[in-house]
């Protein structure tokens, strides 16, 4: 067993060996290393062929037309291109955007940037289950709204938004709809022919492809236009210049092909592992699941342990690679803004752990984690004066703490 055991598939995934194999065939002199934009020789043609196959593989995963797929460096860039691209192109139509408080920073920070440019942004508050409803979106749309950007699956809690229903609302009101699907593509079915989504962001490294590559779906009918954010040689029909990274794109394509072929079976296996984890945690008192339990992707669990402090919890779980909502583990020294937006207090946000299992997780891994978690929580509660007080029936909210 390789320690620490990896339970952070939501952060990134290892590359599938089949993907690595395909990528390695596009690097060396004897391989497919050409520039896909070289039109005058076989090296270029072969590289272009590989890139176009990969584009089709991405499109197939979400039932789109390959001509609707624009390559990018990842979901961050896709989010930037979608949101700034639409806002800038349609700025004469309106300067209002709608998003939610629990979007990825790639969306939130892009919106902040647009606010500095004079756009107005409405940030919808999700319910305590982490869900943004179509009704909320409908109520927030104004005359001058040009774009709604709502994520499909939230990266911290794994909760799924009903983007098909939100898409109906946006289309009816003639507002463009962007979806960050970095965490959902390859895990749940997406049918862009049926869904009324205009723009969708993808990332390869969440689905066993390489880091540093992603895609943006840009609908053709009805057509949506974007202002390019990266200028240059006019690649990707002018929407995103830069020499195409054949090996990266081929890697993303292969990752999507595998996801499409194996997703349903894989999700059942991963769902069973998550259930094993959850069942194994049941005997721990005062444990809370963050976000809706039912509307979530199968491999994920975000839980808070009351009366246990987050940083010491992570310290005791050094054999497990998990992510924490604790301030101590974030660059900003703030507890998770996502959990705060769900209404969690600081203590509960601090003591949260996100477990995400994936393709290479085994039952033994889960059992090992369960043993470690029990040990850690018992130890820290044994040490916790708050646990003592809770056990003695003291209401901690009634105590006047001397904040420091």
């Amino acid at each position, binding site marked *: 067993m390789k320690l620490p055991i990896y339970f952070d598939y939501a952060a990134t995934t290892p590359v599938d060996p089949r993907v690595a194999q395909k990528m390695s065939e596009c690097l060396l002199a004897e391989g497919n290393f050409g520039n896909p934009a070289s039109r005058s020789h076989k090296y270029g043609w072969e590289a272009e062929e590989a890139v176009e196959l990969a584009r089709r593989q991405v499109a197939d995963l979400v039932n789109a037309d390959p001509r609707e797929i624009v390559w990018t460096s990842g979901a961050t860039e896709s989010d930037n291109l979608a949101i700034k691209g639409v806002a800038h192109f349609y700025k004469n139509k309106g300067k209002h955007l709608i998003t939610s408080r629990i979007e990825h920073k790639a969306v939130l920070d892009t919106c902040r940037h647009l606010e500095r440019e004079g756009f107005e942004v409405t940030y919808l508050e999700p319910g305590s289950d982490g869900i943004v409803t179509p009704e909320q979106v409908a109520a927030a749309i104004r005359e001058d709204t040009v774009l709604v950007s709502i994520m499909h699956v939230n990266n911290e809690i794994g909760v799924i938004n009903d983007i098909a229903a939100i898409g109906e609302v946006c289309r009816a009101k003639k507002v463009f709809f962007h979806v960050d699907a970095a965490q959902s593509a390859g895990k749940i079915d997406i049918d862009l022919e049926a869904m009324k989504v205009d723009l969708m962001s993808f990332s390869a490294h969440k689905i066993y492809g390489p880091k540093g590559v992603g895609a943006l779906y840009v609908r053709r009918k009805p057509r949506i236009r974007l202002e390019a954010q990266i200028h240059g040689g006019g690649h990707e029909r002018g929407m995103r210049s830069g020499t195409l990274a054949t090996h990266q794109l081929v890697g993303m394509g292969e990752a999507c092909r595998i996801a499409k072929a194996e997703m349903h079976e894989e999700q059942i296996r991963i769902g069973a592992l998550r259930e094993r984890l959850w069942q194994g945690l049941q005997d721990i008192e005062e444990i809370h699941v963050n976000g809706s339990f039912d509307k979530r992707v199968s491999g994920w669990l975000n839980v808070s342990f009351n*009366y*246990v*402090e*987050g*940083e*010491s919890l992570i*310290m005791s779980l050094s054999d497990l690679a998990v992510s924490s909502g604790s*301030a*101590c583990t974030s660059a900003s020294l703030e507890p998770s803004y996502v959990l705060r937006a769900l209404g969690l*207090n*600081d*203590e509960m946000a*601090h003591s949260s752990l996100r477990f995400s299992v994936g393709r290479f997780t085994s039952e033994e891994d889960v059992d090992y984690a369960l043993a470690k978690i029990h040990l850690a929580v018992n130890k*820290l509660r*044994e*040490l*916790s*004066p*708050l*646990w*003592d007080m809770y056990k003695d029936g003291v209401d*901690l909210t009634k105590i006047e*703490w*001397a*904040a*420091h």
Partner: protein
Amino acid sequence: MAYSDKVMDHYDNPRNVGKMDDMDDSVGTGMVGAPACGDVMRLQIKVNDAGIIEDAKFKTYGCGSAIASSSLLTEWVKGRTLDEAASIKNTEIAEELALPPVKIHCSVLAEDAIKAAVKDFRAKHAADQQTAVAVGE
């Protein structure tokens, strides 16, 4: 975050974990910090008739450095007089545990905790003396 060996030692084997009866006259209790700030320390001392701290116990909700600071403190105060215990400085704790700057507040909290425990003990006995006077009248 890298922890010093001494922090890890106290974290893995915390000394004097426990709870004393805070109604007991020979016990002083100091509870400092707040859950929302991420640390709460409860430090208790048992004082003998000669005014010497015989025993000390703690429980701490907080990060590894907070746990280590309070664990270390229980070791240090045993056998000391109240005045000696109350004069322990947070800098001594921080130095002993090699706390990084972002964790200095843990040692400050530990200093606050022992001061609060001594104060609590003294307050209990000041009350005793007053009632004694009242009875004598």
